[in-house]
């Protein structure tokens, strides 16, 4: 499937900001499940950006601006061709850290023993355990009715990022499902990471910015799990950035900090 993405981020700067420094994770990489056909980032200062790989293997930009205007707007857009791999990405890719890194428990990825306890003594293979864990996260946090939008994304911590139009729902935000799944997997000694990306609408899911988890199996390598939608990623999923949790995979971090409003229009090309 060819997917067209138009991701905009707007950021209101505190008055009299002398220096704005931004850390961008806004460049998707080609891999087993996707090929980036075209991609560009529009932002003041992007031409002069420092480019590097972060500790998780993401392509990152360091952008700075002196005396920026009151409102900052960035747009990342492009076309990505995807294939359905049943969520399987395979073994470690060249720029990625060793999978064991993702056993590190962070403040955002703590899971209660009631979540994962029953899998501790399970004789099932790892794949069955992970599917069981995904179902358990869904039971614990609740699942949307068919076609309920799955586009909300909110990071806790110092910086909040959210979409302009929040869906009307009593269910927890997407990242809670991801963090709970990751916490459970890590407690079971299984490496698991946070994925920030895009979802093309269809199959009863609304499109837009999205987040899910990936867990590591020694035989199959990294496999995606979307506990909120109870599926392994399909060809509708585009991976953007990975990290230990939502905070380390944020598409945009800034100094000074402030509220970032994001909107992603995702549709089949």
């Amino acid at each position, binding site marked *: 499937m060819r997917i067209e993405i138009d991701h905009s981020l707007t950021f209101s700067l505190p008055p009299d900001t002398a220096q704005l*420094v931004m*850390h961008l994770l806004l460049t998707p990489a080609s891999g087993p499940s996707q090929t980036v056909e075209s991609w560009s980032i529009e932002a003041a200062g992007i031409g002069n950006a*420092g480019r590097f790989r972060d500790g998780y293997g993401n392509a*990152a930009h*360091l952008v700075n601006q002196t005396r920026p205007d009151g409102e900052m707007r960035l747009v990342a857009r492009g076309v990505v061709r995807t294939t359905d791999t049943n969520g399987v990405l395979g073994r470690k890719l060249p720029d990625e850290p060793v999978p*064991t*890194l993702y056993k590190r428990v962070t403040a955002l990825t703590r899971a209660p023993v009631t979540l994962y306890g029953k899998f501790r003594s399970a004789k099932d293979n790892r794949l069955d355990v992970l599917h069981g864990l995904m179902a358990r996260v869904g039971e614990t946090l609740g699942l949307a009715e068919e076609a309920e939008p799955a586009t909300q994304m909110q990071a806790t911590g110092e910086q909040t990022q959210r979409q302009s139009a929040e869906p009307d729902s009593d269910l927890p935000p997407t990242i809670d499902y991801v963090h709970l799944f990751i916490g459970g997997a890590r407690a079971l000694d299984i490496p698991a990471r946070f994925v920030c990306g895009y979802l093309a609408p269809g199959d009863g899911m609304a499109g837009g910015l999205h987040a899910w988890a990936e867990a590591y199996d020694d035989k199959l390598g990294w496999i995606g799990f979307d506990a909120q939608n109870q599926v392994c990623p399909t060809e509708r999923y585009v991976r953007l950035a990975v990290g230990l949790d939502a905070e380390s995979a944020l598409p945009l971090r800034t*100094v000074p*900090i402030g509220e970032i409003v994001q909107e992603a229009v995702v549709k089949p090309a």
Partner: protein
Amino acid sequence: MGEKTPFDEMYNPDGSVREPYRALAEWLAEQPDKGLALMQTDAEAIFRKLGITFAVYGSDEGNEKVIPFDVIPRIIAANEWRRLSKGIEQRVKALNAFLYDIYHRQEILKAGRVPEKLILNNEAFCPQMMGLEPAKGVYAHIIGVDIVRVGPDEFYVLEDNLRTPSGVSYMLEDREAMMLLAPDLFHRSKVAPVEIYPENLRRTLESVAPDSARGAPNIAVLTPGIYNSAYFEHSFLADQMGAQLCEGPDLFVDGGKVYMRTTCGPEQVDVIYRRIDDDYLDPLTFRPDSMLGVPGLFDAYRAGNVTLVNAPGTGIADDKAVYTYVPDIIEFYLGEKALLSNVPTYNCTDEDQRAWVLENIADLVVKEVHGSGGYGMMVGPTSTKAMHAEFRKKIEARPDNYIVQPTLNLSTCPTHISGDVAPRHVDLRPYVLVGDEVRITPGGLTRVALKKGSLVVNSSQGGGTKDTWVLED
């Protein structure tokens, strides 16, 4: 260890003088009455004039103090030093290899030689460092190794300081003061120079400049500012090396590079000897509330445009819980036995060991895993019963937060105490520089516990310093 008389570095048990101290003993015998006391007064004046002060946190009587200096030098024989420096070099090489491995393939964890959880879930482990290739493969460029002596041939490493070890300015100033106070003493012995340290520091820093640096690398010393207890040292070292002393706001990133604001416009910086802790280095990557750091600095480092000295995340190698594995770390990477011993350390998370520790706490030393500077520790034999009870409770509540060691009977050196000479316990912190090569300054900083019988040498806890001599053959 226990009750027996500590090893005296100057006198043999029969009262004769040990060889390295012979010249000093003669000199001491020649000093007139009150000679040492006068010298002590002069020393005080010299240090005030040099402006060497340190800040004691949580003390009311003035912020700045002159660290007590003892006018009798501590002496290490040439052959003793050769052995020590070989052991130190082995240690710093292995610890840098360990850091490279931990931030790349983690072979030592796969091999099960160091527990995975101890590293991965450690606060001192810095996931942002994964996959980074530091210049020359070096993470910890400036290291202070704390060593104690308990016998003629018995040395132990107490801890490795791989974050931002301080105190080197005292080593340099103690020597300067000693040469002013007793120039004649230097004619009687061949003492290895320490004055070369700032030059070696500069060479080390230049050798780890990024490949992109053109011409002579531009070096900056980054300090948290005048309220830091070691501010004097930061400005002293910058001055001695001919480098710029900067605070966070003096630096900024532009186009992925780091610049210094100067009166002649921005100047690119290639190497930063930073004396700011990891957490406060860059609010964009680490603590967002840090006012001391430089936003974007870490990203510029990852982009390969600047070198940070020491690298962030080196603390994982001097974590007190990781310390117990250093002999294994040396064997794993170098295939050699450790030349310097670790102090035997009890693991309180082990039930049997914990029970034994709680029983014998009055004879043991308890240290907080993340503590430093003598804060949060208890020396059993010199503590009250109430303190013993308090630390028993602390260990029971959080066994993983403490390491416990036997009380080492630290060696003593003759020390000037109000007109008299008396033995006092000492330790030793040699300073090591790692860049294109390993450079160890002969000697280091000797800290002395001025209170009779005290084993705590930290300056924040009433310790002083001595000039440390390594004799040349």
